[in-house]
Every structure is written in C-alpha cells, then in structure tokens.
C-alpha cells in the first residue's frame, strides 16, 4: 500500500541561509497516527508547511497520498485537513460562517456543509459558540474551531500542529477522542506535540526532529532527551 506521506532527503534552506531541514527522510503509513516532536526551532513548523504544500522544498521529494507536492498541490489540498498553530480563521466572521465557507471551498453542497458543521461543532463542544464572531473567542476556543475546520471536509490526512496547546483537560480529551475516531476510519493523522503524555496516548510512531534531521521512534523519548 502507498504510504500516506513519503519524505525523501528533504532539505529546506530559507533565503537568509538558515537550514531548517537537512536531508530528512521518513514514511507515514495509511491509518497511522504519527507524532512530530522536537524543541522549538527543530524544524517542525517548516516540515508541516511543506507537507501542507504551502512551502516549497529546496531539495528532496515529498509525496502526500501518492501525489508530489510540487506537481499537484491542489490535488493534495483536496484530501487534506490542516490545523496550523496560528489561527487562520477570519475574525470578522462567525464560527459557523468560517466552517461553511471552508466547506464550500471543497465543493461540499449546502446541506452537507451544514450537517458537517453541526456535527463538528457539537463534537468539539462548540455548539453554543456557532454564532459568535471569531474575534470574541479565546485562544483555546479558536484552536478548537481550527480543528473542526481541519476535520470538516472528511479528509484522508489531517495535519495538526500542537492541537491541544493551551486547552483545558476536558477539551484536550475531546480532541484526543476525535483523533482516535478519525484513525478508526483508516485515515491518517500527523500531529506535532510537545506533550509526552499526548504522544504516548495517541501516536503509533514518532519522529524526533533535531537540527533539521529526524529519528523515528516507537515511543516518546524521556523528557530530558527531547
């Protein structure tokens, strides 16, 4: 079976000369929950942006769901859900409007988008926030809306950048449960986290990033080592 994510000898050098990724290679199997760990500046955000097709690799090859990120970014984005660390919600719109427009980008019809929005709002405990404009929301609530958006279009792969950072324990458990349910449908999750507990609870395998290079692990390293 084709891996959901294939990364070969990936290098990313920024215009100023910073080498964020330096010959990174790994695979993520379909239906796997794959963790990314590493200190700040280890290259996690750069890797996530490349996997999301936002950033172009300087060298090496990246294939997502069997497609090359350079050749078919639109085809990849069609099957991808992304929750970045920064909220990219439109603060002038309501929570529900953000989800509805996102669904429309992916060609979901009106009823299907409405139903998916209702489902994910309930699922992530956002039912009472649907009509609220995003600029009124706390950081934690925005993060949950981002996650609802990532799952909304029923993607084959979701990329979650520190999905539970700053959330209370109840919200964190809801998100863990959403990730587990998603994975039970044989879909793939790639998540970056700083929490060892989260990595242990969710991830089948992990990539530990250090200085732009990676090491695949079965379990999270001891805190001092990461």
């Amino acid at each position, binding site marked *: 079976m084709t891996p959901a994510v294939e990364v070969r000898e990936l290098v990313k050098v920024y215009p100023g000369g910073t080498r964020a990724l330096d010959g990174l290679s790994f695979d993520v199997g379909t239906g796997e929950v794959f963790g990314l760990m590493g200190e700040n500046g280890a290259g996690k955000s750069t890797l996530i942006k490349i996997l999301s097709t936002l*950033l172009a690799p300087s060298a090496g090859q990246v294939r997502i769901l069997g497609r090359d990120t350079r050749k078919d970014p639109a085809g990849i984005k069609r099957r991808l859900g992304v929750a970045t660390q920064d909220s*990219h919600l439109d603060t002038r719109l309501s929570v529900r409007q953000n989800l509805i427009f996102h669904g429309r*980008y992916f060609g979901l019809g009106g009823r299907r988008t409405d139903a998916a929005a209702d489902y994910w709002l309930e699922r992530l405990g956002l039912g009472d926030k649907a009509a609220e404009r995003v600029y009124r929301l706390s950081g934690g609530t925005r993060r949950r809306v981002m996650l609802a958006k990532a799952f909304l279009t029923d993607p084959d792969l979701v990329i979650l950048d520190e999905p539970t950072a700053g959330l209370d324990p109840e919200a964190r458990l809801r998100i863990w449960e959403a990730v587990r349910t998603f994975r039970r449908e044989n879909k793939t999750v790639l998540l970056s986290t700083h929490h060892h507990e989260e990595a242990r609870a969710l991830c089948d395998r992990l990539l530990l990033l250090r200085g732009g290079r990676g090491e695949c692990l079965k379990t999270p390293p001891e805190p001092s080592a990461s």
Partner: protein
Amino acid sequence: MSENAAGALGVLSCLSALVLRDVAAEFQDWRVALARLILQPSVYLLVFAYVLGGVAVFPGGGDYARIVAPGVAVMAVMQNAIQGAGGALLNGYYFRTMEGWLLAPVSLRVLLLARVLSGTLFGLLGGAAASGLGMAMLGFLPRHPGLYCLVLLLGALFFALLTLLVFVLPKYPDRGQEWLAFLMMPMGFFGCTFYTYAMLPPSLAPFALFVPTTYFSEGLRAAANGASASFEPAVLGAGLAAALTTGWIAADWAFRRRFKNYLW
C-alpha cells in the same frame, strides 16, 4: 458527470466561495461598508462640483459637473478595488488568516482570480455608488450607459490587478502599502480625474499619458458625454488594453512567485 466537468464545477464552487467570503466579511457591518462607499464620493462631488465648479471659470466653458462626475467615479473605483483586492492580503498578513484561503484546493492561478474578482467587484460597487451619487446630486446621466458600465468594470479590474501586484511584489505586504500610498496621489490627482486631459498645460500633458487613470477617466467621460474631448476612441482603447494586459501579466507572475513558496 465526467471527471473534467466535476473538476471544473469544483473550481467554480471554490472560486465563488472565496469571493463570497470576502463580501460577507466586508459587509458583516453593513453600515460601515455603506458609509465607506458613499462618504468619499459625496465629499468630492460636493467640493469639486458644487463649490469649485460654482466659482471657477474653465477654458472652453461647458458643464463642469459632466467633467468631474466621471472622474469621481474613477476615484471611487480605485479606492474600493484597492480595498477589495488588498484587504484579504493585508488581513491575511497581519492576522495570519491568509493560510485559510491558501489551503483551498485550487491552483494559485484560481486563487489569484478570486482575489482579482473580489477587488473588481468592490471597485465596481464603489463606481456604481459614486455614479449614482453623481446622478442624484448633479443630475448627471451617462449618454452610453452600457459603455459607461464597461469602462467602470475595466477600471475596477485594472486597479484590482495593480493592488495585487503592489502587495505581493515586495518582500512583505506592509512595504506594498507604502508603495501604494505613494502611487495613489499621482494616480488619483494626476490621472485627469478632476479635469480633462485637454485642460492640462502642454508641458504637463505628456506625463499624464503614463498614468493609467487618465485612460479610465477619459474613457468614462467619453461614455458619459458622447465623446472624449481629448482622445480618439482608438487611443483610449489602446491605452485601456495596454494597462489591463500589462497589469494581468505582471500580477499573475508576481502572485505565483510569492505564494508557491509561502514565506510570510
């Protein structure tokens, strides 16, 4: 349905959603949006047509209201197209919302088209509002309404393209904002908006030929008054075509160059 037809339908659905989202966001507070549409052209029409038009004597005489009303419409087209095309980029840059539309499942060219359509739509709305005010305040009615609307549309398209180019060309869009502020003054006031090209002294006239606003102002005047006092229709057409073609090629190149490797 064939795969190609389904793909085209998906692209159209995404394109319309991208534009509608800009409209929904802009008109979330519709009172502010409406005030922005009518306030500036009202002030310009009041000051230039009523006050200045009432006291000044213009070479060749004639009705100054018919000169200034199309010029004010071009100013409104420019301001609103900049707002429409640049708003999503600046908001996206300052509030990190840009990834929201960059992750839409379409090519960069379709994303560019969405930004251009938003800017054009807002520009057209601004032009329509200013023209409506001109009609209400000055009793001004265009002689060729169809041609008048076409020139408004082309003007809105050009200023949307120019805005995108200026925002995505520099390293960061805040620098683009500075460039645009620098460009707007000559574009607005030296582009034959409040006077005709024929009214310019011969020493200044050649410079106005390099300002695209000149062709849109004179084109709108020609549609409004039956003919341009300054240019032959072929010259006007060539000026408009050159501005739009250059604008499209440059904006397309700059947009794809900027967003195929998103570093903002």
